[in-house]
């Protein structure tokens, strides 16, 4: 039984404990910024090195995704996306559409959820990551632009 009320806090706590380098993206990041849009997955953009992928996999194995410990860190670091687990499902990205970890980490904003600090993509990078041709992403961009207009780009 997790000590956290939310999957997001549970996953972030494990990643932080493992000293994984990651930035939260996707709808979970949008929730921290200002929406209640539901999602089944937690998207994290990671530093694409085998050492970091190893830390990420070790952390996710502790969230109930037992197979994570059997995954190859080298492969996770080399591929654009690895989906791990199901409840919670964590989408491990080495690129968030066009955004890479180094630039995302520089601009990341830290939100705190249930006492767990979560490095979260900036609104600019979230928008950039959603410049795909998916309709859901286009709708998300509208919401993100409106969040920026209504609240600015600082956490709170």
């Amino acid at each position: 039984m997790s000590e956290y009320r939310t999957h997001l806090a549970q996953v972030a706590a494990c990643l932080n404990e493992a000293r994984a380098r990651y930035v939260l993206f996707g709808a979970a990041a949008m929730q921290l910024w200002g929406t209640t849009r539901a999602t089944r997955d937690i998207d994290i953009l990671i530093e694409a090195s085998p050492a970091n992928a190893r830390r990420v996999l070790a952390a996710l194995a502790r969230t109930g995704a037992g197979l994570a410990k059997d995954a190859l860190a080298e492969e996770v670091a080399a591929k654009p996306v690895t989906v791990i687990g199901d409840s919670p499902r964590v989408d491990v990205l080495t690129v968030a559409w066009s955004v890479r970890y180094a630039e995302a980490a520089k601009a990341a904003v830290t939100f705190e959820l249930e006492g767990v600090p979560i490095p979260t993509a900036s609104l600019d990078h979230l928008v950039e990551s959603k410049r795909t041709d998916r309709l859901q992403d286009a709708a998300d961009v509208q919401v993100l632009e409106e969040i920026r207009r209504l609240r600015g780009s600082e956490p709170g």
Partner: protein
Amino acid sequence: MALTRVTITIPPELVDAADARAAELGRSRSWILTDALGRYLEPGTARGVGVREPPATYEAGLGESRQAQLEADLALTPEERVLIAEQTASIADLRRRHPARDQVIVFDRYGDFLQWRQREALDV
């Protein structure tokens, strides 16, 4: 032609449009509405065919209801938002066709991942 008086309730903008057309043609409002209805019910014409709907108006931005939802969401704390969103997702999970899986799926291309995710979203 014998006439029958009827009372109908229609949107005011339709009345305005009918009146404008009537003025343009030098006819009465009743004549315009009778003519429009006559064309609509013309024998051999499928119901509705030939009657053009006014073009839908698309607003730029979120629209009224989504805007109101976003403003309500922004009034919550980040923690409250995440809790609500996860509760909603857990309700959707109850309708899934399969139980939670322990899985690792590696994608060679980002586009493949987006397609997969779209299919997964329909798995309710």
